[in-house]
């Protein structure tokens, strides 16, 4: 597995587990917490250790007892400077680099300095497969690990919230809610029917061309020049019609109602609740621009990226007669407003609302169009605000909470018996 994959999957698993403890996991927890902390402190000024301890526990589920060891990992990879008085840490200064892949740096450290046991390696491998598509559970047994260990990994993942098993067409399909938070039943069904490989290919195409109109895919039988099969088109139509969460849609007088296809929204760990609303608005913005690109009344948009960057640079889009229908939904979602250039002319100019939220929506929309995914959505901004305040602030948050209880993912019956036997036999050398 690539180094950045190791670090990214450790982060995902640990973030999902939260304050649950898994007896088998050590390296995964350490590396996962290190990545999570690094992502959240990048670019911040000095942080008092006492404040960090409380905030990391409250927001990131990093227990106070292990924080020092996590900071030591970050120190090793030169992501923090630690200022201590004797053995007591006083302050940390984040030096997480920009432009460098945090996952790669920490993954590199993990590959050299940490040793993942068999259970950890298996969990990482299974999750890596499920980032791209759900899979028939049966295929996991081809990895080559002991079937009991596989079952245990799946059980841990289920209790931890990063694996789920869905029964479809008589088969168990395993998927990860981290990457398939919506309409998992539909994805599981198509995997059960056509296999994981086809779903992976389709999702790959969609990722490269986020927001493609379903009607165009149906008509041209392709997405951005790549052919799609009739079965794949049927699946996309099912998403639009039967999905619990439908893709964004726009209604116009000249082209009717159209759906715009996106990859599944990231799950809770990869998309914080605060960012989810922003993400949905960003999809709506991309859909509006794709409407103009593929389904104009008269004049097509040639480059959605250019339109979105123009909106970012100028704060508005030039007036035209199609703007009203094209961007109306965005006004309802409070992304922007429409202003008629002169009463009754039918020419409308779309203005982006001058608030931070709208800027975030636009930035995310540009990422979706140019890179196929939104960046930085896993960061909890409240943590970043909290660590820049004083200890009183974070203590006031904690005072209303009960002491956190660490749950443990219980051993299986077999494991319990094995432990009992160990003590019975006295084989503890």
């Amino acid at each position, binding site marked *: 597995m690539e180094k950045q994959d190791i670090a990214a999957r450790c982060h995902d698993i640990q973030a999902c587990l939260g304050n649950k403890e898994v007896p088998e996991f050590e390296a995964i927890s350490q590396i996962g917490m290190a990545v999570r902390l690094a992502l959240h402190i990048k*670019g911040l*000024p*000095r942080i008092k250790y006492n404040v960090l301890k409380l905030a990391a526990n409250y927001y990131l589920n990093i227990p106070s007892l292990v924080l020092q060891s996590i900071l030591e990992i970050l120190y090793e990879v030169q992501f923090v*400077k630690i*200022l201590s008085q004797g053995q007591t840490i*006083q*302050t940390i*200064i984040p*030096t997480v*680099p*920009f*432009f460098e892949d945090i996952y790669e740096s920490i993954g590199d450290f993990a590959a050299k300095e940490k040793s993942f046991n068999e259970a950890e390696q298996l969990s990482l491998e299974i999750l890596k497969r499920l980032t791209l598509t759900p899979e028939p559970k049966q295929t996991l047994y081809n990895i080559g690990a002991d079937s009991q260990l596989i079952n245990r990994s799946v059980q841990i993942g289920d209790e931890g919230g990063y694996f789920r098993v869905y029964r479809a067409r008589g088969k168990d399909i395993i998927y990860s809610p981290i990457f398939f938070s919506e309409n998992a039943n539909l994805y599981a069904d198509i995997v059960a029917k056509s296999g994981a490989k086809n779903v992976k290919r389709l999702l790959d195409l969609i990722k490269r061309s986020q927001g493609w109109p379903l009607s165009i895919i149906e008509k041209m039988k392709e997405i951005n020049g790549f052919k799609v099969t009739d079965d794949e088109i049927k699946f996309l139509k099912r998403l639009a019609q039967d999905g619990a969460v439908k893709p964004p849609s726009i209604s116009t007088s000249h082209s009717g109602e159209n759906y715009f296809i996106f990859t599944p929204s990231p799950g809770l760990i990869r998309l914080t609740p605060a960012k989810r609303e922003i993400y949905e608005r960003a999809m709506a913005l991309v859909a509006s621009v794709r409407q103009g690109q593929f389904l104009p009344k008269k004049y097509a948009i040639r480059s959605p990226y250019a339109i979105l960057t123009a909106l970012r640079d100028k704060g508005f889009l030039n007036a035209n007669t199609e703007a009203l229908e094209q961007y109306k939904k965005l006004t309802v979602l409070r992304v922007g407003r429409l202003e008629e250039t002169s009463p009754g002319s039918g020419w409308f100019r779309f203005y982006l609302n001058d608030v931070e939220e709208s800027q975030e929506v636009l930035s995310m929309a540009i990422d979706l169009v140019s890179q196929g995914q939104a960046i930085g959505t896993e960061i909890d901004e409240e943590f970043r605000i909290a660590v*820049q305040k004083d200890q009183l602030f974070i203590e006031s948050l904690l005072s209303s909470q009960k002491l956190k209880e660490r749950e443990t993912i219980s051993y299986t019956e077999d494991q319990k018996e094995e432990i009992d036997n160990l003590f019975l036999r006295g084989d503890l050398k």
Partner: protein
Amino acid sequence: MGDCKTLKNQSPISRALWLKGLMELTGASKGMVILEKSIENDHKLAAESINVALLSDADLDIYIKCTSDYIEQPKSSLCLEDNWDKLFTISQKYPGIKPAFDFSKSDFWNKKSSNSKLRKVLGLTKEIKSELNPDNELHVAFIVNMISLFAISLNNIVSNIFNQYLLPTTKDQLSEELKVLIWGGFESFNFQDKLRKLISQKGGLPETDLSLPDWDIFLQLIRNCLEKPHSTTIIPLLLKELAFYYLTEDSLKKEMSYLSKLASNDLYTAKFAYLTSTYFCQATRIPQEFNEIISDHLLKLQT
């Protein structure tokens, strides 16, 4: 721009007009003339129309009280006259440092363009690196003073980049824009880059792209500063105060509170000062003890 020289037989408005000329030459937007005597109102009115404030000694006290961001005046090493005298003796005591010192005293302030100042400060310090001794507090003070000049240029460059691009999305984009800015334009950069490669070729050296030393670290420094560009405006003052702290007599050092005040006013300033000095010490290849001494002090300011 401030003028507090006592000149006999010159009316206040004459002083204001002279200062206005100097402001035009250096690009300063506001001037202040401090006079021992009291000043007639019509002189003050006329001076105000050309953005020059005419203040008497008594006026100055009121001005400071009304515009300062502190209640009780903090003790600053920059306010000790002896420290300035010590600074100006450095080049006499250590002739090897003279070229860099003379630049820091006059040429730096006469140059308008930040991009050439940035390169020159680095280049001159690098040239005299073998003259520098980290065990000598005067040398430490001199180096920190040079870093404060570097920080002035850095602040201008960060402001430029931020005003044009806000936050560059990729490393390559930032790198290209910085190179064009630092070398005074696209054509100038291309020309110097080609020239350097030709010379390297002739000398059998590897043909690397034209850039500042430790370019990747410089990019990280700029990118960090772009997170809070406004915080870079105080870095030069903080570093200058630190430089003068090293010139202060040991018995007075404990009283000097301005440095901690500057660091605590804005946490980003202290962090950026640390990153700036770390880069400067590395890029100029001065003995590494300088970095240890200066970094240690700047890190402690943040606890």
